Structures are given as structure tokens and as C-alpha cells.
């Protein structure tokens, strides 16, 4: 199946494009897509643990299992989210 990956802000700058399509096996989670992306673009590995995700423009967990045609977005930390720090 195929998923559409969206990346934003500095994450997009590192990867070089805002959107990518990737073929992934059935049962793939957002986490797995992220792990593959890190393998492809090692410079984004610093975001592992701090990114959050959305599937089809709804907040989602990294464990979310994706369907064919899903849009999975990876969101770097936002500027104002200082909680709880």
C-alpha cells in the first residue's frame, strides 16, 4: 500500500520536500514510517522522541496503524509549547 508523508518547518527543510509518497507493507504504523524516514534521512534522527503525528489531518499516536492512501504528518515541536518545562 502507499502512504503520503507530510513534513513541516525545519523537518521539511532538512528533508528538502514537504511531501513524499512511500510504499509500505500492510499494518505499517506511523512509527514505522518515521523509522524508515530516519533511515533515509539520518539528519532527522534528532527529532525521534520529540515529533508528534497526525493521520489524515487528525491528531494521532505513533502506534496508529495506517491504511492505503493515508496522509501521515510528522510535526516538529511548536514554538510555544513550553509545558511542562
Amino acid at each position, binding site marked *: 500500500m502507499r502512504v503520503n508523508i507530510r513534513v513541516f*518547518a525545519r523537518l521539511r527543510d532538512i528533508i528538502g520536500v514537504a511531501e513524499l509518497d512511500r510504499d509500505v507493507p500492510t499494518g505499517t504504523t506511523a512509527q514505522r514510517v518515521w523509522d524508515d524516514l530516519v533511515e533515509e534521512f539520518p539528519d532527522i534522527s534528532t527529532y525521534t522522541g520529540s515529533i*508528534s503525528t*497526525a493521520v489524515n*489531518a487528525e491528531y494521532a499516536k505513533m502506534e496508529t496503524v495506517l491504511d492505503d492512501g493515508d496522509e501521515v504528518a510528522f510535526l516538529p515541536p*511548536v*514554538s*510555544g*509549547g513550553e509545558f511542562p*518545562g
Partner: protein
Amino acid sequence: MMGLARLAVTTERLNLDALIKCVHDAPISDGSEGTGAVASFLGLVRESNLGRRVVKLKYEAYEPLALRAFERIDNEIVERWPTAQLALHHRIGVLTIGEVSVAIVVAAPHRADAFAASRYAIERVKQIAPIWKREFFKDGDVWIEGATTDPDDAAAREEAFRRACV
């Protein structure tokens, strides 16, 4: 004719009067005494941040998710302050010093709820809205990254509520 959307992400210059009209025109909720107070908040591009002189800012959003975030905030406000009416617009694109990046208006029967709910709204926007800020200086630029809060995190909601009601 449909009025201005109460919740929006836009490249247009923000218009506080239009937002105020927006909450005024909204239907009065059950049990409300009607609007007796309107509190407004404007977030502006500051000329200096962390000791650096800012030339301009660029805001970028994942627009459909940012709208979902605003809807959540709207629902949370109705839960806490059932008679409050929120209007919330965030600008994206390139902004220069002094320009308005976010505008929030809350109408309520009494001032305490209007002030508290508007403060709550901006705290939650900062926590959960997928909107990123890039600062440009004379000799470079940087993405400002803090932390993203899980929108379902109850402790974060409580923290925003605490800040709103101090």
C-alpha cells in the same frame, strides 16, 4: 450571508473589529444573560527575541490540523465557560515587526469569564496548534522549537486553566 468564520488560519491581515462582530453575531447560548463583556488579545511580532534583533517572522501551519486544534480549544472553552463565545484567528506567512500574528476575542456575560477564557485560548494555542515560527535576523534565521503537547494531556489543560485563572 455567512459571516466571518470564528476560527481561522489565514494569510490575510487580522482584523480585530471583524472578530468582535463575529462573537457579537453568534447566537446566545442557553442560560446566558447575553454579552456583557468582550475581552480581546493580540499577539504581535516582537522586535527582539532571546537577545536577538528580529527582522521578520515566518509562520507556517499544517492548516487542517490547526483548525482541528482551534475546534478543540473552542470545545474546551465551552466546557469550562458555557456562556463564553470564542473567535480565534492565526495569521501565517511573512510578518514584520509589530504585525498581529494571532487575534483572540471572547464574549461572555461577565468580564471574569471573558478574560479567563481568552487567556486559556492563547495558552492552548501555544501548547497544541501545529503552527511553527521561523525568525529572521540580519545575518541568519532559525526555526523556533519548544515542545508539542499531546492535545489529550489533561495535565496540560489544567496548566492552561491555572494560568487563565490566576
